[in-house]
């Protein structure tokens, strides 16, 4: 086994880049984007058939102007519409934008941990306007809220740090909802028709994450 080294070119944070193909399996006309596109049709994209994310993450939306069902895209290959939807309700993507990710500091954090040093913190509440029972998550991915004793609906969300994606069902299934730093007072503010979230995970810039999971080794 040889040691796995990341190429030197990847030591610089890459600017967002996504290739959109009009047909499945990376066929047909190709359009590259490096920034937000509020209406793909205006940009000359007739149909989104497959997607290659060279540098991410991105979020796609069913409707123009970043509205409707949300689809989170991380770096990788998406050969068909069913590789980005969990609901299989719509095969349409009409707008796209890069997701801003706060890059982890390159040096280890000071051992003195303060509340401000948390990279990811989200609080989800049973009722609108941050009331009712709540579940608070810090620096972890949670595939099952029930496993942590939270079985209530989610009607409001407060993101104190980091970027997150919530899912309707356990194990990161069902409708996806992107949560960026800020307050979501009601489920309509995060684009949900039903106030149900049963799993949530962090969006990270894996190459730069100080506590990234990947340790090349022999």
């Amino acid at each position, binding site marked *: 086994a040889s040691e796995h080294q990341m*190429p030197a070119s990847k030591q610089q944070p890459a600017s967002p880049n996504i290739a959109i193909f009009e047909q499945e399996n990376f066929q047909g006309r190709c359009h590259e984007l490096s920034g937000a596109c509020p209406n793909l049709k205006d940009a000359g994209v007739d149909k989104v058939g497959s997607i290659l994310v060279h540098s991410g993450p991105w979020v796609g939306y069913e409707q123009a102007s970043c509205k409707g069902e949300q689809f989170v895209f991380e770096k990788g290959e998406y050969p068909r519409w069913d590789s980005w939807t969990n609901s299989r309700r719509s095969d349409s993507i009409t707008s796209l934008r890069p997701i801003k990710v706060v890059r982890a500091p390159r040096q280890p954090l000071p051992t003195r941990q303060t509340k401000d040093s948390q990279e990811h913190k989200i609080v989800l509440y049973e009722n609108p306007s941050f009331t009712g029972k709540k579940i608070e998550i810090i620096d972890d991915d949670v595939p099952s809220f*029930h496993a942590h004793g*939270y079985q209530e609906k989610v009607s409001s969300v407060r993101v104190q740090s980091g970027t997150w994606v919530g899912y309707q069902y356990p*194990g*990161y299934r069902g409708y996806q909802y992107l949560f960026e730093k800020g307050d979501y007072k009601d489920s309509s503010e995060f684009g949900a028709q039903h106030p149900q979230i049963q799993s949530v995970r962090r969006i990270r810039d*894996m190459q730069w994450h100080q506590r990234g999971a990947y340790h090349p*080794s022999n």
Partner: protein
Amino acid sequence: MIQRRRPSSGLWKIVVWDEPFFQGKRHEFTTDCYSTPERGFSTVRSFRIESGAWVGFEHCGFQGQQFVLERGEYPCWEAWSGSNAYHVDRMSSFRPITCAVHGRSQLLLFEQENFQGRRGELSDDCPSLPALGWGGSAVGSFLVCSGAWVCSQYPGYRGFQYLLESDTHAGEYKHVREWGSHAQTGQVQSIRRVQQ
């Protein structure tokens, strides 16, 4: 780190219904179900995982597409297979995942079969292997050191799922054939720990 305490629970429990949205005939299981038809359920169309982690299968005898199922409510097929490679509107066998230890999981992945080629080590969830710098979109073999993991064909835990357990054939998954009866290619773009 989670700020809530987990309720104490050592065992496994799944409640299944033969109609969607928790309707129709109901039955509780606390151990393996090799074949739902043999237990009087021609299909299972909704279920609730009350404790432990489980793995469900498309066909009887733990065959076909796999669905990793953690605690929660699964009212319709979209909830367990809406993100899979092709949708499966029933579940015909299931069993507990007994080795899941969310916080202390470790996995080695190899570029080629039989633990050959470049190697990487994971101890945390990874929604995009390409973003970590893993070249290509395929993995050749896995060695599960601890815990239970689920790897997926596409980023963000979508597409075919393959369950990897430390207590199944010593955690060794040398070849794509050993990942499951539905495994056709070594395409893997996301991997995560299973929540107990």
